[in-house]
C-alpha cells in the first residue's frame, strides 16, 4: 500500500498551480484534503504522474456568505464550513449535510470542493449542490474561468465536468429562499460511513404555509445525485402533510439503486422512500417555523 513514484508540486498561487496543471495535462492531479485521493494512490488504483498540492495556496482558503448564497473556496475544509454560523444562516443544508460526512478527523482535512469534484455518488455534498442548483467555478491557465451548473457538472460515478488542466477554485450554493426549509436524512451502516441511502430535501411554503415547491436529492441510488421534484405531488398541501406515501412512491420510482455487498437495490429503494418522507417532513416543519 505505497503509491508508485510521482512528481510533487506545491504551488503558492493559483496562477502557478494552473501553469503546472496545464503543463501536466492528463498526467496531473490536484491534491486537496487527500482523504479520497491518498487512499486511492496507496492502493495503486490511481497513479497520477504529477501531483499538484494546493494546500499552500492561501487564496483558496475562503468561505463567504451573503444574501445570494455561500461561496466555498477550494481549500475550505468540511469542518470550517460545518462550523460557520454565517453559512448556517444563509444555507442551513450545508451544515445539515456535513454532519453526515465521515468523522471529525476526516472533516478537518477533507474539502467541500474536493468532495464535489470527486463526485462520489454516495457523497452528501454533490447532492446538496444538485438540489440547490449551485455551480462550480473552474479555472484553466490562459483561459477565462467557467461557471458550471450542478446539473451539468456530475457526469457519472467519480466523473465530473472537470477537464485535465483545470482547477476547481470554488463552489457556490444559493441561499435558502424565504419561507423555505431544508433537511438531510441518511442511513449508513456505521456512524459516519458513506450512506446506504440519503435524501436532502428543500421545501418552500407560501404565506398560508402551503407547499409551493418541494424537491429532494437522493444519494447512493444512481450514478449521480438524483434530483426529484415532487412539487406536483405536494402541490398546495399544508406543510404538515409534506410527506405522504404518494411522494415516497414518486421518489422510489425515480431512483436506480444497485445491489452491493452492503445492501440490495430493493432495500435501498425502500430506504430512499422512507428517507424522502422523513426529510420532506422535517424540511417543511423547519420552513413553517423559519
Amino acid at each position, binding site marked *: 500500500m505505497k503509491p508508485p513514484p510521482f512528481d510533487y508540486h506545491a504551488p503558492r498561487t493559483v496562477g502557478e498551480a494552473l501553469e503546472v496543471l496545464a503543463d501536466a495535462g492528463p498526467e496531473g492531479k490536484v491534491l486537496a484534503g487527500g482523504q479520497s485521493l491518498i487512499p486511492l494512490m496507496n*492502493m495503486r488504483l490511481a497513479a497520477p504522474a504529477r501531483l499538484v498540492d494546493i494546500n499552500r495556496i492561501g487564496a483558496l482558503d475562503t468561505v463567504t456568505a451573503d444574501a445570494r448564497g455561500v461561496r466555498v473556496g477550494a481549500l475550505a475544509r468540511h469542518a470550517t464550513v460545518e462550523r460557520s454560523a454565517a453559512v448556517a444562516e444563509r444555507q442551513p443544508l450545508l451544515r445539515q449535510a456535513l454532519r453526515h460526512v465521515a468523522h471529525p478527523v476526516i472533516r478537518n482535512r477533507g474539502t467541500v470542493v474536493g468532495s464535489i469534484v470527486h463526485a462520489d455518488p454516495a457523497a452528501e455534498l454533490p447532492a446538496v449542490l444538485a438540489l440547490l442548483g449551485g455551480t462550480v467555478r473552474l479555472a484553466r491557465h490562459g483561459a477565462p474561468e467557467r461557471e458550471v451548473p450542478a446539473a451539468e457538472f456530475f457526469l457519472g460515478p467519480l466523473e465530473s465536468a472537470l477537464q485535465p488542466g483545470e482547477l476547481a477554485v470554488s463552489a457556490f450554493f444559493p441561499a435558502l429562499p424565504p419561507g423555505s426549509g431544508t433537511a438531510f436524512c441518511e442511513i449508513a451502516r456505521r456512524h459516519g460511513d458513506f450512506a446506504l441511502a440519503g435524501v436532502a430535501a428543500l421545501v418552500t411554503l407560501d404565506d398560508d404555509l402551503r407547499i409551493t415547491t418541494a424537491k429532494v436529492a437522493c444519494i447512493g441510488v444512481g450514478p449521480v445525485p438524483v434530483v426529484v421534484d415532487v412539487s406536483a405531488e405536494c402541490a398546495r398541501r399544508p406543510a404538515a402533510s409534506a410527506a405522504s406515501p404518494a411522494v415516497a412512491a414518486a421518489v422510489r420510482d425515480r431512483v436506480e439503486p444497485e445491489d452491493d*455487498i452492503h445492501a440490495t437495490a430493493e432495500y435501498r429503494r425502500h430506504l430512499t422512500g422512507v428517507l424522502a418522507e422523513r426529510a420532506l417532513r422535517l424540511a417543511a416543519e423547519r420552513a413553517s417555523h423559519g
Partner: protein
Amino acid sequence: MTTSLFGERVQRLEDPRLLTGNGRYLDDLGRDALAAAFVRSPHAHARIREINVDRALDVPGIVAIYTWEDLPERIGEPLPLLIPHPALTHGRTARPLAKDVVRHVGEPVVMVVARDRYAAEDACDRIEVEYEPLPAVVGIENAVRGEHLVHPDVPGNVGAHLVQEVPSADGRSAAEMIEAAPHRLEFRLDIERSASMPLEGRGVYARWDPDDGSLRVYSSTQTSTSVRMAIAAKLGLPLPKVEVIAPDVGGGFGVKIMHPWPEEVLIPWAARTLGREIKWTEDRREHFISSAHERGQVQYVRVGFDDDGRILGLDVTFLHDHGAYTPYGIIVPIITSTQLLGPYKPGAYRVEFSSVYTNTVIVTPYRGAGRPQGVFCMERTMDRIAAYLGKDRTEVRAANFIQPDEFPYDHRLTFQDGRPLIYDSGNYPEALRMLKELIGWDEFAKERERAAAEGRRIGIGIGCYVEGTGVGPYEGGHVQVTSDGRVHVSTGLTSQGQGHQTAFAQIAATELGVPIERVSVVTGDTRRFGYAVGTFASRAAVMSGNAIALACRKVREKALRIAADALEADPGDLTITDGIVHVKGNPSASIPLSTVAVLANPLRYAFDEEAKRATQFATAASDDKPPVAEGEEPGLEGRDYYSPVRSTFAYGMHAAIVETDPETAEIKVLRYAVVHDCGRLINPMIVDGQIHGGVAQGIGGALYERMVYDEHGQLLNASFMDFLMPYATEVPRVETAHLETPSPLNPLGIKGAGEAGVIPVSAVIASAIEDAEGIPIMKMPISPSELFHLRRTASARVG
C-alpha cells in the same frame, strides 16, 4: 504499605508508555532495514505457467527477487502441520512461496527485497506471472458437492471427518433419545466468516550477525518460542543461535498464534542469505487476503425434548470451512463440537463434522475459536425449544443446567487438548439469577409494551456459554530479585495488549510482599525465557500467572531462609512487607530483600551501596563447606512451571436489549449485560476491559463483519472501507457483574477471561432481534438489508 494487590483494580502499568506513543511495535524497529514485499496470487485457483521478473530488475533500489525455485530444499518444502489429529486424514499445508499451483487469492508467489517498501512494491508491479486459472471452490456447500477439487488428492474436498457420541445414562444413542422424545425439532444455523483483524498486522524483522553466526528475529507473534524453534529447524541453525522477540504487539486475537507464517521463514532466511537486515510489515490488504479467517460454518441440529424443555437427545452435524490449507489442524471444529454443550447436560449427544477445503484464505482460531458458532447453535436451540413450548427462554435454560453440586462434571467427550472434557467448577443457576436481575428480564414485558405504544420495536435476548481456558501443556516463570531490590519477572508467552505486565506484577508483588513499582515483567523474549507455548485459548493468566506465583514462592522461601540466618530467627516467624523481611511482631528485626539478594550471592564486589551494607550481615564462611551449598544456586531467583492436568472452565451469560426500526430495519443495541465467572479475579478492571473488547468484537461479528467472496474466490471487501468493524459509536456500554467460583485446579484459583466477551454475542443478538421481530433468526451476521428481506419473506408467508 503493600497489602495484597491480587484482586485490586490496579491501573495498567503499560498504558502510560503505550498511550504516549512510546510503544515499540514491529514497524517501529529496523529503520534502516531493507523492505520485503510479495507478489501474491490474484487468482483463487490457478496453475503458475511462468514467472518473468525481467522488468523488475531495473527498478531503482531492488536488491533481490525470489521465487520458489530459488529456495533451498528445506525452506521450499510445505510448512509444518502443527496440530495433527487422526480425524484429519487429508491435511495439506502450503509452501512459503507457491510452486506450480496457487489455491487462494493472496497466496505468496514471489518475494521482493528492496531499499524500501515503495521500491519493493514498484518491483512487484512489474513482475509478470502467467497463470492458467482453474475452477475455484468457494462456499461450504460447493465444497462438499466436490464437483471441483482444491487439492486433486483430497476427494470431496473433505480434509477431516469426526464423530463423537455420548449415549444417555441408560446407554441409548442420541438418535434413539430424539425418536423417543415427546417433542422434536430440526433446523439449520449458519455463521459466516470474519477475522481477528488486529490493529497491527503481522510483521517480521530479521538481522543476521555474521561475526556471531546468530540470528535475531522480531515477529509480531503470539508465540516467540515456537517461531524460534521453527526458524532454527528451517534454517538449520543451532537453537541457541536464534533469538526471537515479540516486541509490543498491536493485537493478535488468534491470527498470530499460527506459525511459522511463510514470512516468518522467508524473511530470516533472506536476511541470512543476503547478510542484511530485512523487514516485512504486512499491509491491510495483505492481511485480508493472506492471514487467517474464522467462523464460517453450516450447522444442522436435531433435538428431542420433554415438556419442561429438557433436552433428551441432541444431534448436531456441521460443515466447517477451513480454507485452502490446514496448517493449524482442526482445532476450531473440535472446539465447536465439544464446547457447544455450554452449561447444559443433554440426555445424549452426538456430533459429527466435516472440515472442508475451499479456495479461500486459511482458517485458524480467532478469539472464541469455534465457540461462537457452537454457542449460536446451542442457544438458538434453547430459544427454539422455548418458542415451541411457549415457555420463558430462561426457564428452558435453567431446566438444562448442570447444577453446582454436580462438579466436577464429566461430559464424556474429548476436548481440544485431547483430554476428557471435565468441568471443574461453576454456579450456573446463580449466574442466571444475577443476569436476569442486571438486565431486568422479568420487567421487560412492560418495557416492551411502553415502547410499542410509542411505535417502537424492542426485544430482549440471552446467551450462555462455558469456555475451556488455560489449556496446557505448560508455561514457566522466572523471578529474580537483584541487589537494588528490583524484581524481574519473565515468562515465555507473549503479550498483545492484555495487560500482562500489570497482572503478572500484581501476582509477583503479592507473593513476594514488594511494592508493585519494583516489579517489572518481560514476556515473549526468548533471551529471557526459552520454554513457552504461547498466548491463546485464554491461557496466559492461568498458565503463566500460576507459574510466576510458583516461581515467586520459591524465591520467597529462599529469601526467608537467608534472612532467617542473618536475623538469627526461624523462617516461619518471618514475613515480607513492602520489600522488607521482618520478624512477625518485631518490626525492628528486619532486613530488606535487596540485602537478602546480595547475601544470596557469595561473590560480593562492593559495586553498590547495597553490597557494602550487606557486609554487616555477612556470616563467617566455614572452611569445610563450599560457598554455594549443595542444592543451592547463587542469587535470589527462582524458576518454576505450571502444567495442569486439564483445562479450567470459565463461563458467562449475556443479555441484550435491541431496537429494530419498523421502517428502515436498522438494528440498535440499547443495552448489553454480562455476568461473568473466571474464578478469582487478579485485576477486575483488566477483566472488564477484556469483556468490553470481546463484546465489541462480538457485535462486529453479529451485525457488521463478513468476508464477502464472489464465486471466483475474490474477496470483495478486503479493506476497512467495506469490511465493517464497529466503531465506538456502534458498541453499547457493557454492564458487567462478576461471580468468583475459584478453580480447584490451580494454586491461584483462576480461570481464563480473554475470549469470554466475544463468545455468545451472535447468539444473544439473534435472540433479541428474533424477540423484537417475531421472525426466526437462523443466520448471523445480520444486516438491516437482510432484516428487511426477512420481513418481506415473513409477511409474504403470512399474507
